[in-house]
């Protein structure tokens, strides 16, 4: 218990550090948000409008950095991340809450599917090392070497253009309104299949190879031979002794990749013009939308932290040796 509290404290501190950095970095950049906004409107703003923008962004008063920082923390606490430039005057929070579900559903699901399938395949391949199963490894190697954007473009060229079975872009049927109805959800699933497949294909090989190699290593451990010598059923030895221990490194890798779901999907969402947070971030960078970028980075940071915290706890649960006693 003490271990969990100590870890929790560590992660809270890290989160605070990340939030603080997130506050200072944009302030070290030249210019200010209003200047950026003026640039965006290419000077077609009159002085009154500029004046009111300064008021809106709270840049009219002479406040110390410390006061700013406290205000920032206070706003953050109330879910206020500022106002986006690109989608002016929509609050960043609103944009993020709109795009996050898309990313989590698409990338989250395909990451989990890729991990589960890849790990299971790795268990099988590792257990049957030295047989025909080894011939599948070069194929896995090949797919793990393909750059994701290329795979995505090829998938679009083949299955959306040459043979139009799937849509090439978007997250849902443009003719439907977002809502909990069959028509919209069906369209969303239909739009999600192609990007999901490409994500699964490009990530699965890594899981297969990692798990397979760990299986080979663990299978030669004495305790696996002991389990065999005990006359345990083959499945029990394979899953209960070999895979149970071999999966440990994959677990932390998986937790980290869950953390990167939010941030690491930029390419996938760009290729498929998918309305997720990666695509938003891409647009924010393109139009120097600092508040949106800041918001997106914050979400990415927090999700990585939460994921690695989960990884720590799951790992401690699965591997008693990592529990620090005391």
């Amino acid at each position, binding site marked *: 218990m003490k271990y969990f509290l100590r870890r929790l404290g560590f992660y809270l501190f890290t989160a605070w550090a990340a939030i603080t950095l997130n506050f200072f970095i944009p302030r070290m950049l030249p210019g200010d948000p209003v200047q950026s906004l003026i640039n965006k409107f290419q000077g077609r703003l009159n002085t009154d409008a500029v004046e009111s923008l300064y008021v809106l962004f709270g840049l009219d008063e002479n406040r110390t950095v410390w006061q700013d920082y406290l205000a920032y923390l206070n706003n953050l606490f109330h879910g206020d991340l500022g106002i986006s430039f690109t989608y002016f005057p929509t609050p960043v929070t609103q944009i993020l809450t709109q795009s996050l579900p898309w990313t989590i559903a698409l990338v989250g699901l395909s990451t989990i599917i890729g991990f589960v399938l890849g790990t299971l395949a790795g268990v099988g391949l590792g257990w049957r*090392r*030295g047989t025909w199963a080894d011939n599948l490894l070069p194929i896995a190697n090949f797919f793990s070497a393909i750059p994701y954007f290329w795979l995505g473009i090829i998938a679009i060229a083949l299955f959306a253009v040459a043979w139009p079975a799937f849509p090439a872009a978007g997250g849902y049927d443009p003719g439907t309104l977002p809502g909990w109805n069959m028509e919209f959800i069906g369209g969303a699933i239909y739009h999600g299949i192609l990007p999901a497949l490409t994500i699964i294909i490009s990530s699965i090989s890594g899981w297969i190879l990692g798990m397979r190699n760990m299986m080979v290593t663990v*299978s*030669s*451990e*004495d*305790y696996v*031979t*002991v*389990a*065999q*010598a*005990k*006359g*345990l*059923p*083959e499945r*029990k030895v394979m899953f*209960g*002794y070999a895979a*149970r*221990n071999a999966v*440990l490194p994959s677990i932390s890798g998986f937790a980290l990749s869950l953390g990167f779901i939010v941030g690491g999907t930029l390419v996938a969402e760009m290729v498929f013009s998918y309305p997720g947070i990666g695509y938003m971030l891409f647009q924010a960078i393109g139009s120097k939308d600092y508040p949106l970028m800041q918001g997106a980075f914050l979400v990415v940071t927090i999700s990585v932290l939460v994921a690695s915290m989960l990884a720590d706890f799951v790992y401690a649960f*699965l*591997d*008693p*040796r990592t529990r620090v006693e005391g």
Partner: protein
Amino acid sequence: MTITTPQRTQAEPLLEIRNLSVDYGYDDDAVRALSNVNLTLHRGEILGLAGESGCGKSTLAYAATRLLPPPGVITGGEVLFTSSRSRESGDLLRMSDKQLRAQRWRDTAIVFQGSMNALNPVYKVGKQLIDGIAAHEKMSRSAMRERAAELLTMVGISADRLDSYPHQLSGGMRQRVMIAMALALEPELVIMDEPTTALDVVMQRQIVEQIIELKDKLGFSVIFITHDVSLLIELADRIAIMYAGEIVEDAGSREVYHEPRHPYTAGLLHSFPPLRGPKRELGGIPGSPPDLLSLPSGCRFRTRCPYAVDACAQLVPELGGTVFGDEEPHRSVACHLHDDAVDTPAVPAELAVRPEGRTLLGVDPR
């Protein structure tokens, strides 16, 4: 502990290994790790397997139980197990997987170097004791836990250690847990693969005494694998000396100690100080074990043997009777010096010591 006398009773065989050969690797890359090994373990016996590292002692034990990890391949032979409970008797190498699984642990258990990695680090000790029982017995969970506690107590560990993880135990305790685990189903044969090697001498002594005590109590037979010949001489009834994948001498442990017949055995005995009696010159064996990929022709030991003659390079010695023939019917040696059919000089005095202390010095008994 006294030096045990060799068993000369008409004990029935429990495990007979016949012409067992094992390769490492496949096809052309294969290395022959065991060549036509013959060995018989009698009921109630402690059989020691000794030899330098890499001589194939562990390979023999794992091949005989079909636990050899790839790329080890059994290329021939048979391993006959005769159970007194007659549940799963027969050739272990030709049993179906199902029969083999039923036979394992119930009839043949193995004690590994428990202090190393033989216990799964992620499971509690109790769970690992119980799942071996659960694979063979239909018992309630609580009955199995009770049995596991009983086993731990039997090897001198308090029962509350059932909920400990292996890393929370000392090396000696882990080794005891391994022994308790092996005895869970009261097997007839326990194979011990260097069970004391990683332990300090005090702990080693305790474990060995425990093994003997448990053996007397439960009546199992033991194949004890170690490179420590001095330990075997005290512990084992019979010792088989292995060299480069072959058994070169098979005799009672007292005989091995006082009356070695093979030059390699004699060399091994010169590698450690005598346990009692007059001091002996420590010599060791010159050279190192041969590369199994490029074995010398004829006798594999001839390149290191002080008594090698021309015939040794031409003929492969077979495991057979000693030069004393019918006077020592129970022991065998693989050396041309003891073979009447091969023209060799008289057996050197060192290898012709007789039980009465009488040496056939320079006298050709033929």
